[in-house]
């Protein structure tokens, strides 16, 4: 999932025939004057960051005059909104609000179908909306092969008590919103609020759009907006994380190496398999230790990829040992894992006598893998122990080392 910023999302809506508020995107305060010249009347300033709840974070402002706009823009540019620095501000005409509605399209994972949600109680967070106004919300499961015809959308709004010209406009707009959702392989497209002004014109005041990073191959227009590797994180990538994204992308078709930095922790965590990594992290936490990072690797990576990942894990400051563990592999070659790990340890000058290492890796070519590990002085385990047993060994080793260091 990749978040598309509000200005781009609104551009896509406009291209689908939906009227959106006039706006200008600025990248520095010096561009503000020109933006204000271009727009008539009052404006709103919004930080363009890929996270929600910007209002609460103070990243949306309604200045009363130019002077205040300038000082507020300066403040917003200096902010980090949930760790994302503000690089752009959307300067947008302020819309006159009569009513606030809500429209979204997303996938209902349980029904395994797209779902469109409409509500006449927009303008608040969707969680509170569902809690406080369940009677003002209607849902419709869309046939993915048919899409959302205008009439279906009108039925939805009619059930919410809408009639007259507004019903026609809402039907058309909702159908177009679904069209954008479908066209750009979105996972979510939410307009909240959808403002109804004094003249019963509809204007999306916000647009939250997330697209499916797995569909980027057929969405060339979206490519520039999506940062590879950021789709699963709650914050911008750290330097080490970026480095390992590069390691992974250098050979994208062989094996996977994912790395997430975790605050604190002494144990370098190099565990394989999506599920296996979860088991190992849980096992270490149960024993009262916190790993220095999270990883998943597998799918038969090359020795180079293993090396790049190992190097990254070990080089995080504060790492005092390494746990290399995986479920018994279906296809990952254990000798390649051994080659990569041993090379990283040698290059970073880590002596297994001083830098505790536990390996539990059974599977394809494990006899050769065992030889490589053992000839580098590393204790090797295969099918003789279980995964939680490897975690316990690691914890014992690192605690021994720490108490020896203190005495």
């Amino acid at each position: 999932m990749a978040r598309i910023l509000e200005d781009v999302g609104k551009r896509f809506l406009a291209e689908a025939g939906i009227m959106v508020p006039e706006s200008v995107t600025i990248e520095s305060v010096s561009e503000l004057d020109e933006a204000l010249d271009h727009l008539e009347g009052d404006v709103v300033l919004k930080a363009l960051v890929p996270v929600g709840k910007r209002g609460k974070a103070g990243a949306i402002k309604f200045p009363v005059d130019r002077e205040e706009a300038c000082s507020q823009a300066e403040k917003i540019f200096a902010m980090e909104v949930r760790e994302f620095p503000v690089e752009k501000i959307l300067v947008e005409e302020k819309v006159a609000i009569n009513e606030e509605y809500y429209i979204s399209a997303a996938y209902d994972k349980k029904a395994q179908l797209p779902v469109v949600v409409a509500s006449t109680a927009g303008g608040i967070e969707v969680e509170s909306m569902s809690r406080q106004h369940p009677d003002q919300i209607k849902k419709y499961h869309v046939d993915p092969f048919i899409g959302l015809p205008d009439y279906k959308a009108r039925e939805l709004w009619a059930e919410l008590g809408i009639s007259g010209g507004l019903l026609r406009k809402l039907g058309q707009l909702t159908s177009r919103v679904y069209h954008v959702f479908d066209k750009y392989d979105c996972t979510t497209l939410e307009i909240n609020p959808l403002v109804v002004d004094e003249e019963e014109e509809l204007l999306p005041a916000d647009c939250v759009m997330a697209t499916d990073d797995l569909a980027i191959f057929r969405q060339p227009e979206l490519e520039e907006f999506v940062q590879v590797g950021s789709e699963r994180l709650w914050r911008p990538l750290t330097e080490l994380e970026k480095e390992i994204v590069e390691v992974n992308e250098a050979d994208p078709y062989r094996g996977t190496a994912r790395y997430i930095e975790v605050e604190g922790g002494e144990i370098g965590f190099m565990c394989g398999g999506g599920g296996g990594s979860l088991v190992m992290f849980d096992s270490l936490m149960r024993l009262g230790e916190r790993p220095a990072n999270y990883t998943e690797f597998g799918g038969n990576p090359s020795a180079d990829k293993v090396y790049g990942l190992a190097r990254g894990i070990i080089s995080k400051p504060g790492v005092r040992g390494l746990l290399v563990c995986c479920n018994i592999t279906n296809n990952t070659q254990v000798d390649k894992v051994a080659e990569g790990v041993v090379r990283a340890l040698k290059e970073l000058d880590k002596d297994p006598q001083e830098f505790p290492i536990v390996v539990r890796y059974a599977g394809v070519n494990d006899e050769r893998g065992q030889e490589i590990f053992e000839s580098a002085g590393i204790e090797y385990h295969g099918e003789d122990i279980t995964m939680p047993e490897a975690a316990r060994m690691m914890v014992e080793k690192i605690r021994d080392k720490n108490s020896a260091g203190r005495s």
Partner: protein
Amino acid sequence: MGILIDENTKVLIQGITGREARMVTKHMLDYGTEVKAGVTPGRGGQDVEGVPVYDTVRAALKEQEINLSLIYVPPAFVLDAVQESLDNGIKLLVVITENIPQKDVVKCLRLARDKDARIIGPNTVGLINPGAGVKLGAIGGDDPDRCFVPGTIGVISRSGGMTAETSWMAKRAGRGVSISIGIGGDPMIGSTPRDLLKLFARDDDTEAVIMFSEPGTHFEIEVAEYLEAGNFNKPLIVYVAGKFTEDMPAGTVFGHAGAIIEGEGSKPSAKMERLRQAGAKVVENYDEIIDYIKEI
């Protein structure tokens, strides 16, 4: 016998000429699986490990008896491949491919429901019946016997790697497996744990089931409801991985793409509690699986 696959399984592999599919074809044949045909458009007339390759599923079905399609085509072509098998009347499909766009997955699953067909996956390591010597997909690699020995325990796992490890735990406890199934790691999959438990409930060769779960999804709540309805009278041992993710900042995905926590009910601790109430044997430490197996 077991569920889904047995001695009578006759396999077609869509995308058989790809690098990984070729290797898997060899391993499947070595294990004794009847791979009758492959399909790669434009490669008709060739063969892979002695298996004839056809241009279309229709052409393959004219010459071969097939009752299962194993799909190895790249993500962009999965929807078309699934549609082709379904339209040609195949009722059991195993979709190995990962990284399929969500929109295409939704369409595949929708079509399968319309045709009353079953999909395992997508994004699965496959499934194996060691008693019958049948395996589909990379599961077990070139040495399935290392983890999968014949026995009476069913395994259902969200994680491919842990399908093998969990089956190996059964072996370590002195038992073996009837069928081990990787259900796939995507947010939306064709056969959920509840769907499979319904089959295991009726299978005389399965005495107990082990389930390996991850954060996210409503699957475990469904399983708990199913247990409470009294339809499953065999021991169900469950390990839910990823408890630590509850202490991590929201928004990060650990484990599979499907492991996004949405709502309280999809948190590991909530799943464990709910399943425990419903009568499942919920394991805190993964090693305890062995103790529970020994009690069966």
